[in-house]
């Protein structure tokens, strides 16, 4: 665990540093795969940054709207650098809406655009698991297995490493190189969602901090199962809509 990287007089939060590195590496990888989906580099970068900036702004405004009294008492908090004053749902919604508007203006098709973003998402899944390892968040359940790591007063499953390894393997399997054969439009994205949801569903069982829902079920597993089901349904639809060979010949 290394939550803070002390370099000279600077104390740099390792998790944030890893996420930034993931954004950079993910964008680089997505840039290499973008031509397969008919996107040029500028469009890809603008697409991502429009979504990111819009997500940050709507996340902050959404949080402020939910806690209006706190922000009326301290309006300067609107421009604070704290991650803790962001509403994740508003950020996600704002980012997606901004991405959709950008796509409409640039005449981007939804499925190829999602495919172009898939390598970036894959890299972010790897780095977010590593960020959790650095900060000690999303920790594992106690275990006596020989590869347990000492964390928070007990020997625990290194569940962050399980998740990072799985995400890395999924990334390498789905996007081996930029000149790989093209899949059906939307398939790169749906395969990433399906594999990642499956991995989350499996490894969540070894977490020590799972939130639970009705019947003691782990909430993240139920959400991952729903995401897996939606991705499999989408893949089935894409496979059915695949053009017949004779139509291609025509």
């Amino acid at each position, binding site marked *: 665990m290394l*939550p*803070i990287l*002390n370099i000279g007089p600077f*104390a740099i*939060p390792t998790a944030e540093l890893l996420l930034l590195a993931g954004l950079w590496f993910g964008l680089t990888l997505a840039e290499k795969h973008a031509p397969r989906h008919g996107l040029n580099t500028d469009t890809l970068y603008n697409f991502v940054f429009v979504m990111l900036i819009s997500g940050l702004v709507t996340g902050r405004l959404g949080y*402020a709207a939910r*806690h209006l*009294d*706190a*922000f009326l*008492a*301290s309006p*300067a*908090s*609107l421009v*604070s650098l*704290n991650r*803790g*004053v962001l509403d994740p749902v508003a950020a996600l919604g704002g980012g997606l809406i901004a991405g959709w508007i950008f796509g409409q203006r640039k005449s981007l098709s939804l499925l190829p655009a999602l495919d172009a973003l898939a390598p970036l998402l894959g890299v972010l899944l790897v780095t977010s698991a590593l960020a959790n390892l650095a900060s*000690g*968040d999303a*920790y*594992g*359940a*106690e275990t006596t297995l020989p590869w347990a790591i000492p964390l*928070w*007063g*007990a020997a625990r499953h290194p569940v962050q490493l399980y998740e990072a390894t799985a995400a890395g393997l999924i990334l390498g399997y789905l996007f081996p190189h930029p000149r790989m054969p093209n899949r059906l439009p939307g398939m790169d994205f749906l395969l990433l969602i399906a594999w990642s949801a*499956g991995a989350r*569903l*499996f490894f*969540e*069982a*070894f*977490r*020590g*901090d*799972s*939130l*639970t829902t009705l*019947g*003691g*079920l*782990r909430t993240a*597993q*139920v959400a*991952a*199962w729903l995401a*897996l*089901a939606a991705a*499999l*349904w989408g*893949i*089935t639809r894409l*496979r*059915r809509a695949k053009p017949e060979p004779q139509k291609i010949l025509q």
Partner: protein
Amino acid sequence: MNPSPKSWNFYSAGILLAGALWIAVSARLPGALAAPTLPAPQAGFLAPEFTLQTPEGETIALADLRGHPVLLNLWASWCGPCRAEMPAMQRVYEDYRDLGLVILAVNATDQDSAAAAVAFANDLGLTFPILLDLDGAVGRQYALRALPSSYFIDANGVIQEVVIGGPMAEALLRTRIENLLGQVP
């Protein structure tokens, strides 16, 4: 491998069924969030206990504050972000202390000095208790890596959130403290 549509549907149903079974099985495994029993400087764990003195010689023990939400802030007088966030902490303290909020500002005196800590508190007009961690024991208990570090502790002594670094936004302080106060039975 490119399975036929019928085989694909069969595989998909099998995957989803296996997933549902795994969810049911893993609900029985240990690890789902339960009442914490271990002390650790991490959200979801009991806040490590300590007893420290103020510069005036008053002794304060964290264990005696059960029943009150506590904001524990580790700081030093030479730390810029610590200085930047203290006025907001003072305003929040004034607004919420009558509702039961306790703020403990633990000075990392092993990296600072008691005289500098007192001058700092007087300069900023701080009225919440300043505690002196003379030998750095509390810093070690809380795995202190950066200043300031803040721990939002609920009335049951469980850490609800850790914020490493600063300055914290005043709105963040207010929302977290209102949340802690809302949980007090």
